[in-house]
């Protein structure tokens, strides 16, 4: 029997407000433990939460971008449980009346575009962190810098069918959050955290199987791996005649497996109830409208516009709009040199490969849009060759500066007059008798080598097309 997976995700996204959600402490990352704290986020007796409106704005914008309906009244609820990183003994979250419901995200899959429905988006506070002593240190430590940092939880319907779709969905979610500027959504930094509900069923069936919840998938690398493992595990259990137990499992990245964390009967009863310290969150339609108007152009729309306005392919448009900063870079380069196809090509190939190689974001890249635009323009206008263009990009990357000046100063301009090239071609023919012989005997492919020699001697400044033609002409003269 063939099986298919049914996957739903619960994603936590950290909102990048300056201050925490219920007090005025800083949300800055990486400070010494317990320095971004006050009596309120430490849960000291008698202290009370006051809602940070900026967090609400960010959450609403995120929900709007996920095509959700914003509820005009939502209610904060307490989720009660004991853990050292939870100073009040409860987390302020939302329960039966969340901020937003009924949204969707479109993702690109092999089978075309797919709609992943969003069940709900709610606002809550983050917990702190427990740090366990290493080596001989028998103590555990609690760092509450993160306690009270605003989060949204995004819950999907079980519309995801493969681990790859889950990965694409999360990537899309990250893209949207970055477009909005409400979160950097970096999974490795814990700004985006994902739990997955996974079940399997016979292919084509409409019934849902018993699901397990997978926690601790804390890296983009592991999303697909963890889900693949769990799906495979469930299939093996079923095939062996067993039954899937409803339980919470933990992804163990070092072993590459999921392990039982707690069985269903050990699940917490969180005893949710409305938080009496906070009034219901009432959002006036004018407020929602205002925030809606402030939304930037979102990736789906921008991609469509790139295809339409710039005549780019769906693929290039997708790649360019996958990061707001890249799309911004692209469009800002166009202002200096309006050649969308060429600029798109340089951004998606040359620029992005360098970013990947160095593992940096485009905003941190040592090159600006005007510089890249000038390089592309120099190449497109045949002032320099493509090869020199790449070299020039490396120089600008390392040293900065105006590409035009560099070209002049370093004598990189393309050699286009035939007489000076002819000298070099003649030299090469003289220096490579064996290759020339081969060519003349009919192995014409060897001309590539000869062109390469010419390029080497001219330090890439010759137009390879032109060199090839010149070589062919000279060699055919020899033949006669």
């Amino acid at each position, binding site marked *: 029997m063939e099986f298919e997976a049914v996957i739903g995700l619960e994603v936590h996204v950290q909102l990048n407000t300056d201050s925490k959600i219920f007090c005025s402490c800083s949300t800055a990352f990486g400070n010494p433990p317990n320095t971004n704290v006050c*009596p309120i986020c430490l849960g000291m007796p*008698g202290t009370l939460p006051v809602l940070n409106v900026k967090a609400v704005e960010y959450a609403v914008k995120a929900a709007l971008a996920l095509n959700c309906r914003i509820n005009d009244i939502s209610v904060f609820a307490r989720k009660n449980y*004991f853990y*050292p990183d939870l*100073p009040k*003994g409860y987390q302020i979250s939302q329960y039966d009346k969340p901020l937003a419901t009924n949204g969707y995200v479109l993702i690109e899959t092999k089978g075309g575009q797919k709609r992943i429905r969003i069940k709900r988006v709610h606002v809550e506070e983050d917990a702190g962190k427990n740090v366990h002593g290493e080596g001989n240190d028998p103590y555990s430590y609690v760092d509450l810098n993160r306690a009270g940092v605003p989060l949204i939880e995004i819950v999907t319907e079980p519309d995801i069918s493969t681990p790859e779709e889950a990965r694409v969905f999360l990537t899309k979610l990250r893209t949207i959050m970055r477009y909005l500027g409400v979160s950097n959504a970096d999974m490795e930094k814990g700004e985006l955290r994902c739990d997955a509900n996974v079940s399997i069923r016979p292919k084509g069936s409409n019934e849902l199987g018993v699901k397990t919840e997978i926690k601790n998938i804390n890296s983009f690398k592991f999303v697909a791996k963890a889900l693949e493992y769990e799906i495979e595990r469930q299939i093996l259990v079923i095939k062996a005649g067993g039954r899937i137990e409803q339980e919470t499992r933990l992804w163990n990245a070092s072993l590459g497996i999921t392990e039982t964390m707690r069985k269903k009967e050990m699940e917490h009863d969180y*005893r949710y109830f409305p938080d*009496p310290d906070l009034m219901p969150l009432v959002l006036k339609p004018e407020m929602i409208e205002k925030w809606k108007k402030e939304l930037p152009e979102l990736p789906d729309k921008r991609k469509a516009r790139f295809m339409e306005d710039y005549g780019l392919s769906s693929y290039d448009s997708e790649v360019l709009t996958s990061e707001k900063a890249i799309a911004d870079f692209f469009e800002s380069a166009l202002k200096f040199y309006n050649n969308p196809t060429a600029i798109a090509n340089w951004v998606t190939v040359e620029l992005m490969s360098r970013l990947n190689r160095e593992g940096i974001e485009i905003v941190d890249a040592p090159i600006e849009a005007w510089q890249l635009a000038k390089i592309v323009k120099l190449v497109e206008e045949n002032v320099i060759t493509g090869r020199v263009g790449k070299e020039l990009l490396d120089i600008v990357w390392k040293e900065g500066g105006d590409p035009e000046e560099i070209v002049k100063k370093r004598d990189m301009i393309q050699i286009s007059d035939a007489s000076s090239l002819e000298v070099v071609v003649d030299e090469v023919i003289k220096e490579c008798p064996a290759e020339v012989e081969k060519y003349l005997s009919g192995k014409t492919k060897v001309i590539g080598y000869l062109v390469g020699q010419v390029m080497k001697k001219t330090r890439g400044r010759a137009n390879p097309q032109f060199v090839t033609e010149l070589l062919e002409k000279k060699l055919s003269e020899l033949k006669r």
Partner: protein
Amino acid sequence: MELHRLTILEARNLLEKGEISPSELFGAFLARIEKVDPLIKAYITICEKEIEDIVEKRGKLYGIPIAVKDNICTRSIRTTCGSRILENFIPPYDATVISKLKKEGAVIIGKTNMDEFAMGSSTENSAFFATRNPWDLERVPGGSSGGSAASVAADLCVASLGSDTGGSIRQPASFCGVVGLKPTYGRVSRFGLVAFASSLDQIGPITKDVADCAYLFSIISGFDPLDSTSYPIESEDFTKYLGRGVKNLRVGIPEEYFALGVDREVKEVVLRAVELLSGEGVEVLEVKLPHTEYAIATYYIIASAEASSNLERYDGVKYGFRVGDYRNLDDMYVKTRTFGFGKEVKRRIMMGTFSLATGYYDAYFLRASKIRALIKRDFDEAFRKVDVIITPTAPTTAFKLGEKLEDPLTMYMSDVLTVPSSLAGLPAMNLPCGLDSNNLPVGLQIIAPLFREDLLFTVGYVLESLVPFERKEVPLGV
């Protein structure tokens, strides 16, 4: 007159004229405390040094010694909540009401005893010791603000602050023969009040007379951005409502409040006071509050549910008591809370935990929330017919120490007359209106519509001058 007998307004008058100095006044109270408090045991902490730190010299409370219930956070002064678990807790912040007192130049003279986490009606649930009623040392002062009420009654301070969740200001004020106000929910900031039941808790004044009550309330009330449930209106000078006439005012008498096991003598003394009021041209009408009988059950479900959550932070991790010997995290939690909390607190945590549990939430917490709405509606209906409602504050006068301690249900019933208005968020005041045959004070409760404390002061001020109650120096013979 001896200095410790002064009201706020009297003391202020003398201080302003320069006839006495703040340190003289403070000294008089410290001497009185030294002599009398060993009998009463109203204070958990006495703040001998606070006089050195008066902030504002021209404030409305300049040099006035005020006692504060020990669940209201005071910076650098231990705030125990009457509990082992916070026995050595020193807050690094002031509650908003404390900031307001300090800004007006008040001196915090001490922190008063209370039932642990304000759970109780006799102050016998304090983890440290019981407080005694100044009128009869064999009897309880009521609770949970028993220390605050007793300190005012025994002249161990000029006035005090208490907190009221289901009657914790009014009932002890009634037992001790002093004035106590539970303000409209949202009118006094809860910031810095250690939470028991957040949707009910309110801080209020306990004073020697109605004028002081209006005066102190003017200072502590008003919007506070630190409390999201604080109502966005500024305070005003409530003393202007003193001395206004009550002619043609309509007073409601709910029959339900004169049944419910209310002591015959208490009924009589309260009804006599109402009669005196009708002599002033007040119209007395019967009103019905039909859901009153469900109030106690509703209250104990809601208050305990909120408490079970509010008290989760006392886990031994960050501050307060932690047991010394434990095997692992769960063991530390269990032992810390088992030893740190008293019996009544644990009882309520268990009740509250139960009523919020999956499968019970609808039948208990949710249903209680619905009945709470019905109780509110009862009052709304009644206030269409009348301006204020008058009832006894408590079914009995002060009972004996130990009398109800082993019978929580009987103990809970001493809040039966104060709990409904708490559930409805209404302002209500206790006013002493006479003595019973044991020479114990009887209190009457005036309940007003939301944000109509002005009516409480107007009616209370008139009544105060009519009723056969004299402020006496108690305990006698010291």
